[in-house]
Every structure is written in C-alpha cells, then in structure tokens.
C-alpha cells in the first residue's frame, strides 16, 4: 500500500511539474504575479511529492519489501542498513528518481529565489521556473512510464538478489547524491540561460546582473561535481584494487565533461558579471554544461558503453533519453542561434587583462571538454559508421588533454594578478618571480631525490608547485604581506579578505596539489606481486610487507579471507598492521577485494590479497600485490580543497542577491 503511495506521489509530481510550467508561462504572458506565484507553489509541491516518493522507495529498501521488483533485484535482508538505504539509488530506476529529486529540489530553490530590487526580474524568473518545470516533467514522465522503481512482481521472491557488492561501500553510497547534485544543479543554469534568451534585452545592466544570478548555481554545481567525482575516483582507487584512480573510462569521461564545462562557465560568468562581456559565450556554456550532463546520463544508461560504472539498460530506454536530450538541447540551441546576434557586449578590453586571461582559460577548458567528448564518442561513431572498432584510452588523452591543460595551468597564476580592462603582464610576472623561482628549486630537489628521474615528472612537479605558490603569491599580494605593515594591520587585512578570495586561492592551490600528487604518483609508483606463505614478505619502493596471518571471517552479508600484514620501512622501523580482504558475497556469488591501505605521510602502501595457491615450499600461499603510491594522498586532498574553495565562495555574502539588494539600497 505504501509503495503505491510512492507511485501515486510520482504521478502527482509529474502533474505538478506540468502545472508549474503551464502556470508560470501563463503568469508571464498575462504579467500576472498571482499565476506566476501559483507556478512557484507548484514547483514546491512537485519537489515535496518527489521527496515523498523517494522516502517511500527508501522505506521499501529498509523493510526489504521484495514484492517491489527493484528492491528484489537490488537488495537483500543481510545487507547492512547503510547499503539498504543507499541501494535505493544504486540501480537505474532508483538513480533516475534521485535525478528527479535533485531536479525538482533545485526547481523549488529557484522558485524561492528573491525577486524585485537586486533579485531576479519577474519575467525572467517566471520563464526560468517554467523551463525547470518542463525539464522536471520530461524526466518524471521518463521515470514513470519506462523506469518506475515501484513496479511490483509476482510471485514475491523470498530473498533479494542484493546490490552489486562493489557498490557496497561508504564512498559509493554518497557518490551518486553529490554527483547528481552537480549534474542537475546545472539545470538551473540551463533554465536561467533559456529564460535570459527569451527575456534578455541589451543595455540597462541586464547581462551583468544575469552573470551574478547564474554564478552561485554554477559554483554550487561545480563544487558538488568536484566532490562527487573525487569520491568516485577514491572508490575506484581502493575498491577495484588495481592501484589506479582514473582510467579515462567512458563513464568517468561522462562526468568529467560537465565538470570542465562548469569550470569554464564559472570563470566566464565572472567576466559577464564584472564587465558585461562574453555574454553570448557564457549563455552558450550554460546551455552546454547541462546538455553534457544529460549526455552523460544517456551514455551511462543506454548500454552503448561498456564500463564498470554503467547501468546495464536496454537500448530502448536509452533512445528515449536521447529523445529528451535532443528535444531540450535542440530547442535551447535553436533559440540561442536565433538570439546570438543580440548577445554582444560593448565592453572593450586589451588582450593582456583579467578578461583576456579568463578568455584563455575558457579556450583551453572548452577545447579540453571537446577533446574528452571526441575521445569518448569517436569509437561509438566509428563503429556505427561501419568502421573498425578502436579503443581510445589513456595514451590518447596523455598526448591531447594533458598538454592542453599544462598550457592552461602555466598561465593560470598570472590571471588573478592582472587588472581588468588592461593588465600589466611584466608587473604580474615580477610579483610572481619568487613563486616561479621557488617552484623550480622545489622541482629540481624532488626530482633529484627520487628514482627514476624522468624529465616529464620534473616538469610536472614544477607546474604543480607553480600553481600552489602562485595562488599563495596572489593571496600575499592581496593582504600585502611584503609591504611595510604592522602585524595589526596585516591581521585586519586578512580578516577583511572576502570569502570568495579565500575560495579562489583554495581552489587554485588545490588544483596545484592535485597536479603534484598525480605527477609523482604516475611517475614514481612501484608495484610488486608474489605468492606469500605465512612469514614471507614482499617489497615495493621503500617499504616491505610481511604476511602474518590469513583467517576466514564472517561479515554481515559476506565471508572473507582476511590477511594481516606488517608494513615497515625497508631499513627497519616500527611495523604497522594492515588488513586486506577478499570478500565473497553468497547472494550474488561475487568476489571483491578490500584493499589494505597504510598511510605514510603523503604516500600510500596499498596491499591487495589475491587467490590462494601452492607456495614455493609447497605450503599454502596467497598472491599479495603491493603498490607503493608516493604522494597519492594529494590526488584526493587537492580536489577536496577545490570543492571547499567552491563552498567558501558560495558562502560569500556578496554573491547573495538579497545582500546585493541591501547594499544597493544603502548606496
């Protein structure tokens, strides 16, 4: 009965979304605040209805109601509670419902956004709410008619088939909500862009204000995407047991493209807000970013891609998703083409200026996104066109994507030091001279310390250090660290620094830390594998691991062979105990590895327990694979810092429309 309530709530949400679109459009056309207000009310109600449906689905998982086929095929009574709840969004149907939840949630937030002085104009808001309602209706209809998670089955199975054990992991339980927050948060940018194309008019400061309205949504989406992708990458790192963290897998690429577009949008929106320039480009990016999100959803669900992360779904539903994608993106870009002529700003700027630097940022980020897009889709297109089947993997991106980004990152620290309109490149370089010098020294020292010495590793080290120190140099410049100042004045300057400035510094420095981690890990990691009997050891890099014991342990829904290993530095030292497991899940008959991680400063010692076999002396032995991954911690800490930077910027009160209105009122 409760499950039918969920299905009913979903129907209601669909009706309310249609109503939201209709009422908002009517409100706009008749200039009636009452009708538009009713549209906003429908947006809130639609969100509540989806929340209800979502809670019902979680409830069905929690009580293991196997008469619901989605629960039966993705849950099991033995599963720990966290994964019962997370199982609600672990399948195609459930994750689409999560998508709709986020979509209507953002729609409700948009409906609650301030209007009037400093806030969104009446017309723009009404149209944006209508577009958001239309998107909600399309996706809710898709869920309801093709992928309802509430379908019953008869006869009711006694036990469920359980969630893929690879997905039963805390990181992966929270990965989809964060990722979808980012994907679907971009829908608000899309809606605001479509609304601006319809409502926008040149002059009167409309476009700079639009840049300000769109920025918090872009910022929030980008920060959520950063956190979600990082969590997913961390999961792949320690759950798949391959020692890698990014494989240029098509599904990873599908999440990376919207991230790149959102990063570009974030920067170009600043130019639109501050200088009224790049209007058409910013609108275009806002449309592209959500289109890429939808493309990702299609790629993952259509079955055209084979990947660890993909949902195995029939092509028919994939085609319908492609239809939604074609309809929304097609209409939006047609509208854009119609209006593109009117989207030119009057603002002028010299090539060397803050604007110029941000234009370059956008050039590189968008070409990088296009590269990932081509690399992901080309094998599909080539095969469909009757050509050969090819694979596009890491070596391709190493020679296309990486150089593009390297150039972009080389210019990055300059940007924040250049003035708007016309910058002083020589002055900026002078102020960065110490950062550049220190980076080179740092790179040479680290490069000399470690084997093997590769030129590329050295260059990457210098680049990463340049980003971190460049970000700090900009911060020092802002608080005038090197001026003749008293400590008190310095403290006041630090206090007075807006959160957005801290956010930018954190994000740019986080990017630098990531580069350092990625470069060192890729260039210097060492791997070794051998069968170990109890008491034998394996060594990789400056560490060795000794197998102490292997026992069979029983988990809540699995049995495991658990190896206990002692990890210690090669020269001897205090050993640290690490556990690595091989888990067998009877429900699905699958085996997974639970990596043993031992942290040593920034380095990871990473141990994978393999199969049992005969050892050298005929006794029982287990294959143990050991990786030494130097600086691997930075690969995940860097992006975490970037996401934090986004959050800090988002909390800056000057981004809030209400506050802008108040300040304008005072001034």
């Amino acid at each position, binding site marked *: 009965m409760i499950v039918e309530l969920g299905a009913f709530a979903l129907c209601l949400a669909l009706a309310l979304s249609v109503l939201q679109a209709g009422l908002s459009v009517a409100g706009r056309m008749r200039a009636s605040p009452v009708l538009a207000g009713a549209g906003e009310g429908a947006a809130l109600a639609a969100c509540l209805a989806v929340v209800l449906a979502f809670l019902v689905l979680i409830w069905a998982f929690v009580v293991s109601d196997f008469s619901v086929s989605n629960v039966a095929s993705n849950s099991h009574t033995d599963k720990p509670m966290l994964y019962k709840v997370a199982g609600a969004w672990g399948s195609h149907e459930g994750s689409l419902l999560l998508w709709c939840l986020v979509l209507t949630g953002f729609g409700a937030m948009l409906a609650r956004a301030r209007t009037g002085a400093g806030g969104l104009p009446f017309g723009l808001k009404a149209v944006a709410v209508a577009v958001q309602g239309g998107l909600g209706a399309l996706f809710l209809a898709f869920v309801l008619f093709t992928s309802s998670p509430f379908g019953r089955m008869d006869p009711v199975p006694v036990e469920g088939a359980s969630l893929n054990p690879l997905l039963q992991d805390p990181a992966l339980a929270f990965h989809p909500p964060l990722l979808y927050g980012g994907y679907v948060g971009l829908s608000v940018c899309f809606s605001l862009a479509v609304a601006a194309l319809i409502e926008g008019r040149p002059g009167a400061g409309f476009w700079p204000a639009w840049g300000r309205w769109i920025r918090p949504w872009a910022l929030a989406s980008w920060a959520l995407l950063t956190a979600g992708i990082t969590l997913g990458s961390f999961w792949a790192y320690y759950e798949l047991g391959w020692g890698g963290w990014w494989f240029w897998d098509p599904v990873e690429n599908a999440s990376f493209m919207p991230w790149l577009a959102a990063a570009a949008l974030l920067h170009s929106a600043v130019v639109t807000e501050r200088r009224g320039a790049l209007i058409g480009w910013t609108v275009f990016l806002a449309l592209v970013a959500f289109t890429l999100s939808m493309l990702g959803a299609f790629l993952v669900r259509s079955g055209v891609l084979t990947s660890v992360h993909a949902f195995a779904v029939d092509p028919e539903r994939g085609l319908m998703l492609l239809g939604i994608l074609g309809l929304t993106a097609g209409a939006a870009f047609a509208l854009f083409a119609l209006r593109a002529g009117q989207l030119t700003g009057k603002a002028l700027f010299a090539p060397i200026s803050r604007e110029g630097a941000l234009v370059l940022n956008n050039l590189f980020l968008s070409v990088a996104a296009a590269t990932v897009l081509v690399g992901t889709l080309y094998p599909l297109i080539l095969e469909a066109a009757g050509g050969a089947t090819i694979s596009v993997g890491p070596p*391709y991106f190493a020679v296309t994507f990486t150089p593009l980004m390297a150039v972009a990152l080389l210019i990055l620290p300059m940007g924040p030091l250049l003035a708007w309109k016309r910058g002083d490149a020589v002055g900026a370089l002078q102020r960065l001279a110490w950062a550049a010098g220190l980076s080179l020294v740092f790179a040479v020292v680290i490069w000399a310390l470690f084997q093997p010495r590769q030129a590329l590793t050295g260059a990457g080290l210098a680049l990463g250090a340049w980003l971190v120190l460049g970000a700090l140099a900009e911060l020092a410049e802002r608080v005038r660290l090197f001026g003749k100042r008293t400590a008190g004045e310095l403290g006041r300057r630090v206090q007075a620094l807006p959160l957005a400035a801290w956010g930018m510094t954190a994000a740019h420095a986080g990017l630098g830390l990531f580069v350092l981690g990625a470069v060192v890990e890729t260039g210097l990691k060492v791997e070794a594998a051998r069968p170990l009997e109890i008491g034998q050891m394996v060594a990789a890099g400056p560490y060795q691991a000794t197998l102490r014991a292997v026992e069979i342990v029983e988990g809540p829904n699995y049995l495991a062979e658990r190896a206990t290993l002692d990890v210690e530095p090669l020269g001897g030292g205090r050993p640290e105990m690490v556990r690595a497991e091989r888990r067998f899940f009877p429900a699905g008959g699958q085996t997974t590895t639970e990596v043993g991680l031992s942290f040593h400063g920034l380095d990871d010692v990473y141990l994978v327990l393999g199969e049992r076999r005969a050892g050298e002396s005929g006794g029982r032995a287990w294959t143990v694979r050991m990786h030494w991954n130097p600086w691997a911690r930075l690969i995940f800490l860097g992006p975490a810092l970037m996401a934090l930077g986004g959050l800090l910027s988002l909390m800056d009160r000057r981004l809030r429309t209400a506050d802008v209105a108040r300040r304008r009122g005072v001034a």
Partner: protein
Amino acid sequence: MRRLILTLLMMVGLSGGALAQEPPPTPDQPLARPEQEARAQALFNEIRCVVCQHESIADSPAGVASDMRRWVRDRIAAGESDAEIREGLVARYGDYVLFTPPLRAGTLLLWGLPLVLVLGGGVVLVWIGRRRPVAEGPAELTESERLAVQDLLKAATSGPEDDATSPPKTQG
C-alpha cells in the same frame, strides 16, 4: 548450520571459485632483466584486456589478461621490438586491443580535432581582437596603485565597486 553453509559457499567462491569457472591464473613471472620488465610494464598499460570493460591488461585480474601479459613477456624475451609486439597484437585481436587508436584516414578527426580547435580558437580570438578597437582612454590603475587609492578612500567609506574577487570595503 548457517555458518557451515556459508563456509562451504566460501570455499567454492574463494578458493575453488574455480571449480565452475576458469582456473586461477598462474602468477606473473617478471622478466629477469629489469629494463625488459620495464618495457613489458609500459606495454601492459596500453594494451586492452579483450574480455574486460575498459581495463588494461596491467590492471585486469582476468585469466585472459594474464595470458596476454605472458605472451608480451615471451615476445620481449624473444627480442621483438615494442612496435613488432603491437603489430602482432593488432594482427591477432584488431585495433581494439590497443588503447592508442591508430592514425589513419578514419581517425584523422579524432587525432586532429584538439589541435585544430585550440589553434582555430586562438585565430578567432586574435581576429576578434584586431577587429575591435582596444580600450580607449587611460589604462586602469595597477594593482598597487589601486590599493593605494583604496587606502586613501577608506575614510570616505565608499570604495570602488567590488566584485567577488576584489578586496572588500571595511564597512559595507
């Protein structure tokens, strides 16, 4: 009882997994000469496991990947060059087996597009820049000049209009 059943399942699943499926692959025997083994490791990363989902044979635990690794090591030991080994693999499995797509007529767009886009974008930017006059009038103040002016204006409480990345007024 439940424990017994689970333990039995476990034996089938973990050690004998085996009974139903392929036998566990024999462990890799690294090549004796380190420079040859390094070549092998580098090659493993660009060769796709033909039964897996987007995994290189360096990463894949599958038996086929293990066989492919052994084949590559054998070829290196037999004195073949990296290029010959790649050719041999493509002859056996097709272009699909290499993560580096081949360069030929059908893949020109794939390889060329990034460069064309970035150069094309650069040319367009230069062209737009030439067509438009550069900002007229006096140049904007340098950062240090601007900060000095802002300090002078502090008493007057109203500084220049700020953006999200510029220093704030002391009192808004």
